């Protein structure tokens, strides 16, 4: 378990426990973080799990796959420097403390 923080669309900040091995999106929907619908269930095709990385871990986040970049580049919520699809990131020890801001949809 690690702690992650999400800033919900309402501005509320929520700290959650995320189990190792699941995706960040799964951890967030499990904890009921608002604004993440995860319609495609993590298949990298709905972009409803889109978040901005507000505070990145020291070691940085894992690289994006080409598909994640492709989806983010063309989705209607304009991609930003710190955009990620949280279903494409696995929860790992060195992500503890990361802060995300929900873009969702």
């Amino acid at each position, binding site marked *: 378990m690690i702690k992650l923080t999400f800033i919900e669309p309402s501005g509320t900040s929520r700290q959650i426990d995320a189990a190792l091995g699941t995706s960040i999106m799964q951890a967030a*929907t*499990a*904890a*009921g973080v*608002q*604004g993440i*619908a995860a*319609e*495609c*269930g*993590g*298949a*990298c*095709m*709905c*972009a409803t799990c889109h978040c901005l990385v507000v505070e990145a871990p020291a070691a940085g986040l894992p690289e994006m796959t080409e*598909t994640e970049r*492709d*989806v983010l*580049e*063309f*989705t*209607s919520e304009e991609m930003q420097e710190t955009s990620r699809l949280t279903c494409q990131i696995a929860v790992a020890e060195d992500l503890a403390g990361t802060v995300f801001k929900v873009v969702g949809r």
Partner: protein
Amino acid sequence: MAGVLRGTVIVGAGHGGTQAAVNLRENGYDRPVTLISADADFPYHKPPLSKSFMKTPDAPLQPLRGPSFFDDTAITTRLGTRVTGIDRAARRITLSTGETLDYEALVLATGTVARKLTVPGADLPGVHHLRTAEDARALRGALDGARRAVIVGGGFIGLEAAAMLAARGLEVTVVELAERLLGRAASAQVAAAIAADLEGQGVTLLTGTGVAALEAEAGRIAAVRLGDGRALPCDLVLAGIGAVPEVGLAEAAGLEIDNGIRVDARLATSDLAIFAIGDCCAFPHAASGRHLRLESVQNATDQARAVARTISGTETDFAAVPWFWSDIGETKLQIAGLAEGSDRSLRIAAPDTGALRAVYHLKGDRLLAVETLNSAGEHMLARRMLALGKTPDAALIEAGDIRAMKAFVTG
């Protein structure tokens, strides 16, 4: 016992019903919310049932929300409980347990049931359908030791399952009555590309072929007898011949039914305290002026969002660009919009391989729909173009440069 619980009662905890409960709470709705489902499994994603769930013998169901989510958000769940009647005058429903519950707003999100084969032998052991987790467990459990499978019906679920079963080493034959796969759900070009892929994976496709009977040996399925007299020996059959909207409850309550529970733009039925969303409802589609019924996760969740807003106090007409996806083996098919009524299709090939990448469907100068194969960014852009009502000219589409199209859309 007459239930005193009021607020919103949601019938069906699939994609639509669950999302409606989630959105009511996200909107700050503070009345009771009760989510009732005949399905006993904790609410789960359905699309993986014909995809990743079939891949390995022990893949778990993928829950829609976490185990404590409903408690945390004060949503009462009643799983494994069927709603058996609606008393509209009293605004009260009856459950299979005999209890009753009162409602202020009732949301019917009852989905569909698998269409059953009607040929002789359709009820034999070894004949499967695929709608629920229970169906999926039964089918998956039957794969061990099975050698040959026949899929009846060349629709999305049948083809997804065909690819998974072939990948697990079964000999798979798909029997489809129509001359090609996917019927009206996809264009002929896309259907042909998918057929070629499946054949490449060793799946045998018999289109233009009917099923006359399912035949038994020792009391279980042993062969599919085709309309032309041939027999296909097999250990299991999956019937993937479509779904029928679950309207029984609404019909018995006297609500208007016409290819689904008929609703208005606000998704209200002919009783204004009762709404219907998702696969079970026929809603007015502004662009075509007709009532449509769609079966997709997007349609169910977008309708859930709209109905939750209305019930939370902001009257909202439902309007959304439809989109859909299907993973057939290694092919990711995505469809944005509705191609029906198009008079022109532009076919785009991938520059590196020459394989079909997208088909743009237009009516006159207006883009209606875009089908993409393994081109996720292009699909996202298509949804955006359709939402904004922007159509690039044919030359720009045919140039196949997605960034150039994005510049046109956002420019």
